[in-house]
C-alpha cells in the first residue's frame, strides 16, 4: 500500500514538510473560479433569497444589502454590507458566498476576509473609496473578482491579484447592451493580442496600459489568465445564453432574479439556459411562462456621469 509511508505521526510530519500546504495561493484562488464555470452567480439580500438561489442551482451567491437596481434608485453612498447580513447568508447555504467591497477600500476587504467570505468583488456597484488606487489583492488569502470593460482594465486587475474577471456591463439596469459591448471588447482585444507578432506586444502593453508579462501570456494562450464571466444587465435566460455564446464562461445575475415577478422560476430558467446556451430548442422551452422580467431602464439613456461602469480605471 503506497499510502503506508504517510501513515502515523512520522508520516504526517513528512507530509507536512513536503507539502507546505499554502492556503490562498494563485492556483487555489483561480481554481475556485474554474469550479464556477458554466454556472450562475446570483445577487441575494436575505438568507431566504440565498436558499432560493441555491435550490435553483446557483453556483454561488453574492451577499449584499441592496441589489444594484435599488442602489441606483436610492442614490447616496453604497458601502460594504452589514457583517450580520453576510454571516447570515454564509450560514444559510453550502455554496460559496461572495460579497462586495468598495473599490480601493482594503479595510472592507479585510473585514470580508475575516468573515470567511469565499470571493470578494471589488465592485463599481458600490461607491468607490479611492479615486486612484484599487486594492492590492495579492495580500489576501480570499480571492477577488473584478469588473472590466476591456483587456487593459482586465489585465490591470489581474496584475493586482484578481483571480477572476467579469464584465462591468451597466449594473441594475436589466439592459444587456453594455455587458455585450464589454464582453465583445475583451474578446476582440484578446484576438488582437493573439494575432500580433511578438515584437508588437510591448507597444500593445503600453497602449492597453496593461502589464507586459500578462499581454505576453494572452498572446501565448489566446485567453485571459483567469476565468472570465459576464455581469451587468442580465435579466433573462436568453441574455445569459447570448453572453455564453459570445464567449464568456459563466454569468452573474444581479437584480435580474429577485426583481422579476417569479424569482424561483427565473433563477431556475437562467441556470438551465447557462448550461444549454447553445441549444435553441432547449432555450425556447426554458424561456416559456417565466412571468415578467425585471422592468429595467435603457442603459444608453443614462448620462455618463451616472454610469457605474466608469468607476475604477
Amino acid at each position, binding site marked *: *500500500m*503506497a*499510502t503506508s*509511508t*504517510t*501513515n*502515523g*505521526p512520522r*508520516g*504526517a510530519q513528512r*507530509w*507536512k514538510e*513536503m*507539502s*507546505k*500546504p*499554502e*492556503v*490562498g*495561493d494563485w*492556483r*487555489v484562488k483561480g*481554481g*475556485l473560479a*474554474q*469550479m*464556477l*464555470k*458554466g*454556472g450562475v452567480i446570483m445577487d441575494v439580500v436575505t438568507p431566504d433569497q440565498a436558499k432560493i438561489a*441555491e*435550490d*435553483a*442551482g*446557483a*453556483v*454561488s451567491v453574492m451577499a449584499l444589502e441592496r441589489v444594484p437596481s435599488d442602489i441606483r434608485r436610492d442614490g447616496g453612498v453604497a458601502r460594504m454590507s452589514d457583517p450580520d447580513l453576510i454571516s447570515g447568508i454564509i450560514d444559510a447555504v*453550502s*455554496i*460559496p458566498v461572495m460579497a462586495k467591497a468598495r473599490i480601493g477600500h482594503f479595510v472592507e476587504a479585510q473585514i470580508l*476576509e475575516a468573515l*470567511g467570505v*469565499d*470571493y470578494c468583488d471589488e465592485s463599481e456597484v458600490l461607491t468607490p473609496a479611492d479615486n486612484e488606487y484599487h486594492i492590492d489583492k495579492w495580500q489576501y*488569502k*480570499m*480571492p477577488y473578482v473584478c469588473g472590466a470593460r476591456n483587456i487593459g482594465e482586465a489585465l490591470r486587475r489581474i496584475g493586482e491579484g484578481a483571480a477572476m474577471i467579469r464584465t462591468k456591463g451597466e449594473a441594475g439596469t436589466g439592459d444587456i447592451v453594455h455587458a455585450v459591448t464589454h464582453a465583445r471588447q475583451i474578446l476582440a482585444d484578446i484576438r488582437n493580442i493573439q494575432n500580433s507578432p511578438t515584437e508588437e506586444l510591448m507597444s500593445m502593453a503600453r497602449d492597453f496600459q496593461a502589464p507586459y508579462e500578462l499581454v505576453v501570456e494572452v498572446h501565448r494562450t489566446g485567453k485571459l489568465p483567469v476565468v472570465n464571466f459576464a455581469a451587468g444587465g442580465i435579466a433573462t435566460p436568453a441574455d445569459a445564453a447570448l453572453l455564453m455564446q459570445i464567449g464568456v464562461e459563466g454569468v452573474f445575475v444581479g437584480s435580474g432574479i429577485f426583481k422579476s415577478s417569479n424569482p424561483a422560476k427565473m433563477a431556475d430558467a437562467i*441556470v*438551465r439556459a*447557462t*448550461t*444549454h446556451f447553445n*441549444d435553441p430548442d432547449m432555450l425556447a422551452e426554458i424561456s416559456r411562462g417565466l412571468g415578467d422580467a425585471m422592468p429595467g431602464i435603457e442603459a444608453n439613456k443614462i448620462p455618463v456621469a451616472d454610469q457605474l461602469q466608469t468607476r475604477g480605471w
Partner: protein
Amino acid sequence: MSSLNGDGATPQQPRIGVLALQGDFAEHIHMLSEIGITAVEVRKVQQLSEIDGMIIPGGESTTIVKLLGMFDFVDELRSQVESGMALWGTCAGMIVIARELADPYPTPLNLLDIRVARNYFGRQVDSFESELEIDGVEGDHMRAVFIRAPIVIDTGIGVEILARVPAIDDRPEQAVAVKKGRVLATSFHPELTRDTRMHSLFVELAEEARSDSVRRSTEETRSIV
C-alpha cells in the same frame, strides 16, 4: 459494431466523455488531449450510451446534482455504471457519485459506496495544495489541489483507498482517493495541474470497459431494442 468505432475514436481508443453541465470540464478535456484522447462534452443523456467512461468534473455539487436530475441523467447513468461504464468524479464529482453525505443535501446518486463530508477543510480561505502519494500512480508524489474539498469518511465493502491525507493537528487521517471496480473518486483536482497520471489511470479503466464483452453485448441488445 460500427457505432463502437464512432466519434473519431480508433478501435484501441476508449471513448471518454466529460459531463459538461457545469464546472471545469474544459480542463479535463484538455488533460485528456495531452495524453492523446479526444473527449466529448456530455450535455445530453443520450450521449451516455456512446461512451466507455465519463468524468464528472469539479464544480458546485448542489448545482451538478440538480442539473443531472433536471435533464434526466440519473437512471441512465446508474444503468450504464452498473453495466460497466467507467466513471470518475473529481471533488464535486466525488460528492455527486457518493452513496451518502454527512450533509443534509444535496442527495447524491449512490454510484460508489462511500460516505462523504463536503467542504471538510473549511471555506475557500482554507483551500490548499499538497503533495500526495497515490496507490497505482508510479513515480513522484502528485501535486494535489484541494478547493473547498470533500473527503471520504467511510467506505463500503470492496472500496479501495488509493490515497489519504495523514492526521494533522486535530484532524484524523482521511481518504481522498478511492476506487471500486471502474469507479474512481478523488477529493482533489488533477485537472488543474499538468500531471496527467490520474487521467491515464482513468483511461485504463475506460479501456477495460471498452473491451468488456458483457458490457458490449448489453449495449448491442439496447441498440436493437
